[in-house]
């Protein structure tokens, strides 16, 4: 099977996954008029008619369909980098230039192993929103009245989403103004959430790292410090939450586009999550023992 065939299979698989994920909340709709909610905003899966708790995302979440759904090695889940016309991104001229400077190990433009320049392989922080697109597996969410903490499985990374009513910071050169105070750009940015109803949290994140430090996905798609990332966390019932992400990055893309729409389900709260660290020592040994030889490079020398 050729590499191109593999990508075609990936596209087919992705469509199946998307079809499953999108169909889940449409199994049936139950009116929640008694709770004062617009019935059109809350769909209840027939397998679990119990409504979600109000304004509460806490729990240990895992992608419906299993681990494979969240790996996203072939590109962001909703727009895999498989060369199909419907998955081409609306690059600006500069955005295409940045993309072409990235030599990724995955995707339709993948390079030979010895040619890559993915910061992931140096165990650099993936940053946000790439954390949403690199092995998003068991994800723990804790919250209190002030903030929500999202704990990712990969590399034990975490980020905060403020829900205390503050404004989304204003982007300025090299960072943000938060409440009038300058704060420098961060790997995971500044996230502020607002409940639009009792089951839907809309989160905007700004102030991430510039495009020379982070990638958007493992196929080399770029993201910049001019981006505003909007996430929608929507509890569709007690056991399910839809997590959607839209990229608005005028420096790199001519229009906003949806990068992810994955249905998550609650896992057993007693689940002990497996570590999945990027260890520089282990990565170095991996290169020495395997990667260099597979690339025709011995001990770092051609």
């Amino acid at each position, binding site marked *: 099977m050729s590499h191109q065939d593999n990508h075609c299979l990936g596209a087919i698989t992705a469509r199946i996954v998307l079809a499953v994920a999108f169909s889940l909340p449409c199994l049936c709709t139950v009116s929640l008029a008694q709770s004062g909610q617009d019935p059109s905003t809350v769909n209840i899966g027939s397998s679990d008619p119990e409504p979600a708790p109000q304004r509460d995302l806490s729990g240990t979440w895992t992608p419906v369909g299993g681990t*494979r759904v969240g790996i996203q*090695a072939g590109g962001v889940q909703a727009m895999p980098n498989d060369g199909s016309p419907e998955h081409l991104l609306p690059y600006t001229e500069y955005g295409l230039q940045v993309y072409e400077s990235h030599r990724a190990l995955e995707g339709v433009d993948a*390079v030979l192993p010895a040619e890559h320049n993915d910061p992931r392989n140096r165990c650099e922080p993936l940053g946000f929103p790439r954390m949403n697109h690199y092995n998003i597996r068991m994800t723990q969410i804790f919250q209190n009245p002030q903030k929500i903490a999202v704990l990712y499985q990969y590399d034990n990374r975490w980020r905060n989403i403020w829900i205390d009513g503050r404004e989304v910071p204003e982007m300025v050169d090299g960072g943000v103004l938060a409440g009038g105070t300058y704060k420098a750009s961060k790997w995971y940015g500044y996230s502020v959430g607002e409940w639009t109803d009792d089951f839907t949290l809309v989160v905007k994140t700004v102030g991430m790292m510039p495009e020379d430090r982070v990638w958007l996905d493992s196929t080399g798609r770029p993201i910049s410090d001019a981006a505003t990332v909007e996430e929608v966390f929507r509890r569709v019932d007690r056991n399910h939450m839809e997590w959607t992400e839209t990229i608005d990055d005028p420096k790199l893309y001519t229009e906003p586009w949806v990068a992810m729409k994955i249905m998550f389900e609650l896992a057993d709260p007693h689940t002990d999550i497996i570590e*999945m660290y990027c260890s520089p020592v282990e990565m170095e040994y991996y290169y*020495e*023992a395997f*990667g260099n030889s*597979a690339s025709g490079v011995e001990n770092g020398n051609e």
Partner: protein
Amino acid sequence: MPVAVSAHHSAFAFDTENTLTIDGTVTEWFWANPHCLLKFDVVLDSDDVVHWVAETQAPANMIDAGWRKNDLKPGDGITITVQPARNGNPVGRIVRVEFDDGRTLDVSQDRTGETGNRYHLSGAPTD
């Protein structure tokens, strides 16, 4: 200045059309990210020994498939099928491993990125 490189995930370095099946003896089971590595020695008819390395998947995936960190030990005899490197070096990606104790490690070859490899453990792992 030497630059370390990686074959992590990319399939271009490997011959995905053909496989190679060989007998060997485990020398190391490297249980780590990004992928576990199985190192083994193969004795040629000339009695020369070739040191092979083959990759599997991340520990998190291996645990989901029923594997444990110390399941494989130096000295274990194996028959292994790999997708070999195109450059002829003794490295490859594991397709299947048969162990002397009856266990097998099967890999569904699906490296499309969306699904990743799926590893299946059969037989009874030893405690």
